């Protein structure tokens, strides 16, 4: 725990109208780490990621990324800073082809050859995307769309990738595949902040974890400690 974190949220308070969704949420991610944020439905996990990504503005609190304060910045500028969010529900562009989706992921890049190389790289990682390269993305299955969403988010070569519920709504076999991909990305040195309802598998791949309950961080620590914590086991890991 030597270097300063590349990404840190400090005391975030976020409201939807009059309802407070986050209460003093703080967390940090260091370069190369895979950090997971777990919690029940409605605990504020997605809200946390959306706030960091600039989709929501915090009422108070700070987000530091790569040495700069970024709270309140537009989300398209935050992506340009090097912080990508792969949103919940995949949000691929169904009216564009698979490759056009990938190209849009690299919208902010101007190195045509590098983009081409990256497309080839993600084609190799996810062969199904290569097979369906010219197909409309809306025709892909849920699992394929999730692969596309992850690859698309990585096309900008972000310094940190945030993933919101990548396993949501997928068949168990596909969930395993998604987590295998996350493990592989981690192996390649990609820094990841992962939000998951599937706490067991999330803690298996993560270095550290945060537990969010009704808008507050109630526990954090190394992933293995959290997996062993009786309260966490009872609430999120099914006993």
């Amino acid at each position, binding site marked *: 725990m030597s270097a300063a974190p590349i990404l840190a949220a400090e005391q975030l308070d976020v409201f939807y109208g009059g309802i407070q969704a986050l209460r003093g949420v703080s967390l940090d991610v260091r370069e190369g780490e895979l950090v997971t944020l777990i919690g029940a439905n409605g605990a504020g996990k997605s809200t946390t990621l959306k706030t960091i*990504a*600039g*989709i929501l503005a915090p009422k108070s609190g700070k987000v530091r990324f790569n040495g700069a304060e970024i709270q309140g910045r*537009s*989300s*398209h500028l935050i*992506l*340009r800073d090097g912080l*990508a*969010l792969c*949103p919940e529900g995949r*949000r*691929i*562009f*169904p*009216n*564009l082809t698979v490759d*056009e989706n990938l*190209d*849009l*992921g690299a*919208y*902010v890049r101007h190195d045509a050859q590098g983009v081409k190389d990256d497309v080839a790289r993600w084609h190799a990682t996810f062969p199904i995307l290569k097979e369906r390269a010219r197909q409309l993305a809306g025709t892909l299955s849920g699992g394929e769309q999730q692969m596309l969403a992850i690859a*698309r*988010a990585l096309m*900008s070569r972000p310094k940190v990738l945030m993933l919101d519920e990548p396993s949501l709504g997928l068949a168990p076999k596909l969930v395993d595949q998604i987590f295998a991909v996350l493990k592989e990305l981690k192996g390649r040195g990609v820094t990841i902040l992962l939000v998951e309802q599937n706490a067991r598998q999330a803690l298996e791949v993560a270095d550290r974890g945060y537990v969010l309950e009704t808008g507050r961080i109630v526990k954090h620590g190394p992933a293995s400690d959290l997996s062993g914590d009786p309260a966490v086991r009872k609430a999120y890991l099914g006993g």
Partner: protein
Amino acid sequence: MTDFANFLLNGITLGAIYALIAVGYTMVYGIIKLINFAHGEFYMFGAFVGYFVLTGIFAVPPQGGEPGYLALLAALLAAGVATGLLAVLVERLCYRPLRNAGRIVALLSALGVSLFFQNMGQQAVGADFRKFPPTIAETRYPRSEVPLESLKEGQVAERDLRLTYYVKAEDGRDQQRVITIANGGEAIDGAQLATARDLAASSTLPAAVHAYPRVTVSNRHLLIFLALLLVSAALYVLVMRTRFGRAMRAVSVDFEAARLMGINVDLIVSGTFFIGAFVAGICGVLAGGMTFERIDPLMGLMPGLKAFVAAVLGGIGSIPGALLGALLLGVSEKMVEAYVSSGLRDALSFGILILVLLVKPSGLLGRFEGEKV
């Protein structure tokens, strides 16, 4: 049969005019789901910009100046750019602040903008019609030249024979005039032939007699077709083949996800307004000005509504749909006008609107999305 061919040709021309307006409607709808009722006023604004460029910078007298293609090109460019910038401003001031206020609110704002420009226009330039300068000499095609000397009194003309000659206009430029010597199937009248010879002799540029078939098309109409072809091709390339077009398509389905790609959504929306209004402004000069020949601050109302019907008929949000819908509407209107009653023309158009909304709200080529929650 000849009549039918002429009606069809006129219908296609009218359809092409509607199409040039409708693409802007449909592009803006496609991207922010707003029916921009002020779009017809962009068409009007473009016509006036063209008018002032021609009468001001090129000093063309509105009654009969034909400064030619270079002046026309300048007028078109000025109209396109000025109208595009106006649309960017309108979006920034009147629509963007309402983007999260709901679609009805933005629609009401658009109606307000439309009325604002109609009334401000009347205040600024007066409510009266103005004659738009012809700008380019009219030529009808196809035609073939016939030597004037070969024509004899009493001879039956196979085709329409017309003399094209030139006089000095008040601005000192040579201005083209055309008189008919004889219509096809008629015998040539001696007095008319003598007049033609006199006019040819006094013509300031070489005069010529041409024979025309019963179905001809004007170079002004050809210009509109050309503009539509260029616009369609350019839009296809822009939307399907460029980075901007990919971003447009992304923004049209999901603002938030587009931002997460680093796309500056506001910039894409501004760009879309600019392009749609650029085309409407050009159309204002080509159609409102040069084809209908008179302009006034309310001239955008009816073509704007018709283009809206065309966009709905084709499937609002779809560019190919707008082109198809506009051509169908233009031809239907001319056919009803010719074979049923000219009074029913507008009733037909708005009847089509109601019918499409009742029976197939997605239009011919659109995908129905329903209300977004």
